[in-house]
């Protein structure tokens, strides 16, 4: 039997699937449920210093190609969020805390607070494509990626994983900047900036007009991003973007990812998707002659 356990910067996972930030992770009860359904870890909703309501509806549009969203980072704020993290942890969940802020100081302050809740790592949401006035588009600026990462690293003692944007010319440069800032791992990719229009109403389908595209359409973009990043950095990478099967996950692993995150596929396969991906990965790895996940990481670079 293939050993599905993997590890990222010291964070041990029972299998390489994680819940991607933004899905079923505003409340502790839902994170507990996702963990119990089989996820190796859960990443929280991106949490900021203050409560935030997000955008008015419509905030999501289901498309053949995937899911378009501009939910607008709703969250109860880092102070109230302690209760949600604790509740997920009480169910045994491995929790990674996703944070955002308006500047490096706010990122650091929220991350420092989050780290006191016992999360296993911090994910820096540097790359939400649809939140104005927040630091979430800093993944467009290499120096900012390095500096924000460094400021957060200075105030926490747990691993820090910046999440990068695909909406750039050369994502690997940003991964190098994150590594220079002391990142312990990279999460790639966030959603692609995108728009849908409802012709019958002659208007954009989202209240925010544009949003971020996730799901199958962006998987080849994510795989390419992870492959490029792994050519340039030594730190581990978590692959995200359109993972809906064990085969999809193996694409990312062979591109160099140590684990994958899953979100949109919950829509098509339900919460059982985490266990199903793990089982499919095990059988594909076995067929390919691998005994464990780490043996398969990055083999496509050979």
């Amino acid at each position, binding site marked *: 039997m293939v050993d599905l356990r993997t590890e990222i910067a010291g964070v041990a996972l029972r299998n390489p699937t994680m819940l991607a930030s933004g899905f079923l992770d*505003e409340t502790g009860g839902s994170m507990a449920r996702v963990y119990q359904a089989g996820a190796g870890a859960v990443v929280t909703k991106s949490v900021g210093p203050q409560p935030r309501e997000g955008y008015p509806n419509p905030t999501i549009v289901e498309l053949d190609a995937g899911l378009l969203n501009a939910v607008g980072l709703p969250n109860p704020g880092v102070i109230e969020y302690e209760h949600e993290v604790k509740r997920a942890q009480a169910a045994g969940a491995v929790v990674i805390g996703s944070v955002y802020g308006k500047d490096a100081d706010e990122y650091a302050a929220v991350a420092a607070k989050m780290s006191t809740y016992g999360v296993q790592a911090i994910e820096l949401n540097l790359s939400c494509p649809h939140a104005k006035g927040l630091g979430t588009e800093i993944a467009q600026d290499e120096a900012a990626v390095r500096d924000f990462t460094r400021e957060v690293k200075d105030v926490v003692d747990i691993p820090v994983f910046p999440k990068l944007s695909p909406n750039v010319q050369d994502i690997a440069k940003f991964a190098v900047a994150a590594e220079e800032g002391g990142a312990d791992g990279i999460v790639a990719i966030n959603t692609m900036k995108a728009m849908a229009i409802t012709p019958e109403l002659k208007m954009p*389908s989202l209240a925010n007009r544009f949003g971020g595209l996730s799901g199958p359409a962006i998987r080849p973009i994510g795989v390419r991003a992870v492959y490029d990043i792994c050519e340039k950095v030594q730190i581990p990478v978590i692959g995200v973007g359109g993972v809906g099967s064990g085969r999809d996950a193996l694409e990312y692993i062979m591109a160099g990812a140590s684990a994958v995150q899953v979100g*949109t596929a919950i829509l098509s396969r339900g919460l059982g998707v985490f266990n199903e991906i793990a089982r499919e990965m095990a059988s594909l790895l076995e067929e390919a002659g691998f005994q464990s996940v780490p043996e398969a990481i990055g083999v496509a670079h050979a």
Partner: protein
Amino acid sequence: MPRIQVVPLLEIVRETPTTTTYRFRGDLGGKPGQFLMVWIPRYDELPMALSHLGAVKGITVRDYGDATHALAAFTAGDRIGVRGPYGNAFQLEGPSVLAVGGGSGMASMIAAIEAFAQQGARVVTAVGARTAAELLFVERANAAGEMHIATDDGSRGSAGFVPTLAEKLLARESFAQVITCGPERMMAAVVDLARQKGLPVQASLERYMKCGIGICDACALDDKLVCWDGPIFTGDQLAKSEEFGRYRRDKSGRRVPV
């Protein structure tokens, strides 16, 4: 293709001074108790129960905020977006049903009241509202079986809270099940009554929603999602809930009193 349909409103019916029914044709199914996400262009997208099944669907909406107020000014031919139906449905569990509705909660239950009657069940409905003019769907409930009324101000039927009326009806006659929809504290009282009698009970809950399809977590109730696991929950589920009758989530996800 996007899973949203833009449909013209065919007919608009003022049911009460604050509540309006909007009828439209949509290429969608729908079972009693299920809801649609309804896009009121330029304003909002909100979950709304199907109050009319069949070829010409209907939603019945109380004017309570900016978007529903804007919708109240729509006329026939104006267009809305609909997607769904989403969520679970009321289940008939025996030969007789007591339906307890408060205010606009009747909109979520009326299709079940009619469907259960059509399936041969005896359906007794207790309809409550603040005042006589706000009673919703009393004619439809009456046509489906037996109908009783309670109003807060006593302007029609018995004066007082509809759970008190439900308690009288439960003492007078044995029912196989209870269904309820209305303000949450009212439903909590009805769920308690039914459970004291050992009766199966289903309640249709309302929470702020964004996605409607089980991913955004805005409508969390304990470890359940109102859009995906509900909107209809059983008395057994609700008895275990820390939040039912006590807390909801605001738009930021903070737990606040109902």
